[in-house]
């Protein structure tokens, strides 16, 4: 039978199959962070089970870390304890940890690719739903709960039912100002937030083939927002070139051997998917969300739709928006450029190109949070920092920050925030905060204008 990319990677990792039950899937790489790992370490300790393969685990501190004064002790006692617990657990179990201030520190889904830890054909997990990001490399990567973190600690395996396969193809030419973020927001708005539940999604078509690795990561990152456990893009020359030379990437002849294997991974021409969607790139425009789930997205020039549905109305009430209204000219006081979706160097380049020579609107608090120490360094080296500072933006230190507002980076109650993150759920960016998801370009333009503008009119 002809196989999909997903089948090939999955089948190569099946250790055993339980009759009428799940399969035992071997995990190549396990990423951990401070929030979803402590209870898993406790569980193993309680049952006196050793960690099977500490050499296949990498830890970072990202979710609950401050983005200013990282060199000082953390003020919040609970946060400090959680980070101390991670250090202690990693030390005790011989797990490499990129703690605050380390040159490799940053958001887990930003650092693993930039360090070459993420490679095609792997299985990767992390106690974080946006682990789907790594699928950009043709990797089976998905988020897991803490009980599963403990299972991987104990056995380097998981018990799973093989998900069904879904392919979303986007072909055609993207318009100017349409970024990978717009592509994925468009897909989710078209297909709905639970269209991918039970499926693993492959993104195909010339739009993804022509995308950079960072763009592919943005797309795969938000697969979970349509319910899919993960998203994948076939590895190609763009992938191999990105991985080559990275710190943990295979070197020399070992690399060539891997590339030869990686080239066998793309879906066979006549592979059959359980579900397929085909979308037209020409129809995509810069996107924006108006509601409280990522599927509630519209083209920036469109009006909010009108549905007579309680959940829809509850959502608009929370956002303080009306059915049928346009978001253009809405005053915005907060802008956040960051998160595992959009905190890589290309995102800051796009923002800086728009911001250059302009001034941030007086009413706007604009937070720029790089995804990692390396991205922060690049921002400085490429002179982007100067551009942002001159424009009045606040460049902070790496971390998840206002994407989930576990630290002090919270949007005040009732305020709108145009955010490059991935979730616009109620209270996601702080109690009562109202999140509007958008690309780094739309976010940067909002910061300059102090309101949402029709970005399509501002592009040369």
């Amino acid at each position, binding site marked *: 039978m002809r196989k999909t990319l997903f089948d090939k990677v999955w089948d*190569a990792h099946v*250790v*055993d199959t339980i009759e*009428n*039950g*799940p399969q*035992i899937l*071997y995990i*190549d790489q396990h990423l951990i962070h401070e*929030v*979803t790992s*402590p*209870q898993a370490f*406790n*569980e193993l300790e309680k*049952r006196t*089970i050793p960690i*099977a393969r500490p050499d296949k685990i990498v830890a970072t501190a990202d979710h*609950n870390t401050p983005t200013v004064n990282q060199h000082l002790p953390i003020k919040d006692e*609970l*946060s400090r*304890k*959680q980070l101390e617990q991670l250090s202690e657990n990693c030390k005790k179990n011989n797990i490499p940890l990129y703690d605050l201030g380390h040159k490799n520190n940053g958001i887990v889904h930003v650092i693993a690719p930039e360090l070459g830890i993420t490679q095609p*054909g792997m299985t990767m997990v992390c*106690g*974080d*739903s946006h682990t789907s990001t790594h699928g950009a490399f043709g990797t089976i990567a998905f*988020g*897991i*709960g*803490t*009980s*599963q973190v*403990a*299972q991987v600690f*104990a*056995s380097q*395996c*998981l*018990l799973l*039912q093989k*998900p069904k396969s879904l392919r979303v193809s986007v072909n055609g030419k993207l318009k100017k100002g349409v970024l990978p973020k717009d592509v994925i927001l468009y897909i989710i708005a078209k297909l709905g*937030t*639970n269209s991918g*539940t*039970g499926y693993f999604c492959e993104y195909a078509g010339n739009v993804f083939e022509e995308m950079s690795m960072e763009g592919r990561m943005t797309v795969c990152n938000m697969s*979970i927002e349509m*319910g899919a*456990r993960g998203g994948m893009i076939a590895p190609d020359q763009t992938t191999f070139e990105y991985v080559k030379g990275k710190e943990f990437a295979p070197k020399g002849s070992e690399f060539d051997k891997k590339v030869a294997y990686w080239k066998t991974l793309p879906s066979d021409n006549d592979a059959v998917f359980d579900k397929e969607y085909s979308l037209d790139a020409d129809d995509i425009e810069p996107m924006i969300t108006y509601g409280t*789930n990522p599927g509630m997205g519209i083209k920036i020039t469109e009006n909010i739709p009108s549905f007579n549905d*309680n*959940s829809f109305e509850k959502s608009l009430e929370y956002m303080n928006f009306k059915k049928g209204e346009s978001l253009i000219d809405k005053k915005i006081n907060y802008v956040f450029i960051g998160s595992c979706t959009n905190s890589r160097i290309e995102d800051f380049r796009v923002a800086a190109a728009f911001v250059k020579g302009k001034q941030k609107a007086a009413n706007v608090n604009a937070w720029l949070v790089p995804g990692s120490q390396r991205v922060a360094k690049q921002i400085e080296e490429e002179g982007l920092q100067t551009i942002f500072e001159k424009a009045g933006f606040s460049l902070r230190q790496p971390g998840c920050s206002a994407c*989930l*507002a*576990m630290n002090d980076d919270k949007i005040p109650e009732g305020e709108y925030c145009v955010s490059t993150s991935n*979730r616009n*759920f109620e*209270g*996601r960016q702080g*109690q009562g905060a109202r999140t509007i998801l958008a690309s780094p370009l739309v976010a940067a333009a909002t910061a300059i204008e102090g309101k949402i503008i029709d970005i399509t009119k501002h592009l040369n």
Partner: protein
Amino acid sequence: MEKFTKLTSRAIPLATENIDTDQIIPARFLKAIDKLGFGDNVFRDWRFQKDGSINEDFPLNNSIYSGSILVAGNNFGCGSSREHAAWALVGYGFNVIVSSFFADIFKGNALNNGLLPVQVSEDFLKKLITHLQENPTSKVTVNLEKQVLESAIGNASFEIDTYKKTCMINGYDDIDYLISKKEKIIAFEAQNEW
């Protein structure tokens, strides 16, 4: 893990759709390093008003409702992978969640904590929610062995993986099973050093 075979209880209807794990347990409560106390903060920002007072209208606070079965709108548990959501629901006292659709990661987390996700048709769910709103003392029985939910508006069968069903009935978890397969896993590693 607690064993689960059969439960008869009153049920609390929560009609909202797409309830994400940020609503079940907001991120600011994820700073703990153990599994305790999350029940106190389940649906925190829906249960309490902004000034900290109780939101009397929210079904969990409404004294006409009680029980250890939550009947919730379509696509329950979407969003973040935080298992804290399952700990919070169990901590509050729920043993069963009924919905017409569950997000994948939440479903797995629930099963790993002895919290049974019961998936019924959208039509049945709507009727059950309306029935419970009109008859809050009506009881619902969830029989895992027979894989059936029994209620005054009729019965609905539900699917569960045979392996997971055995785990729930016996209180086993996946770690025990995986450890028992250690030899196979080591042999697999030896064959596939990539």
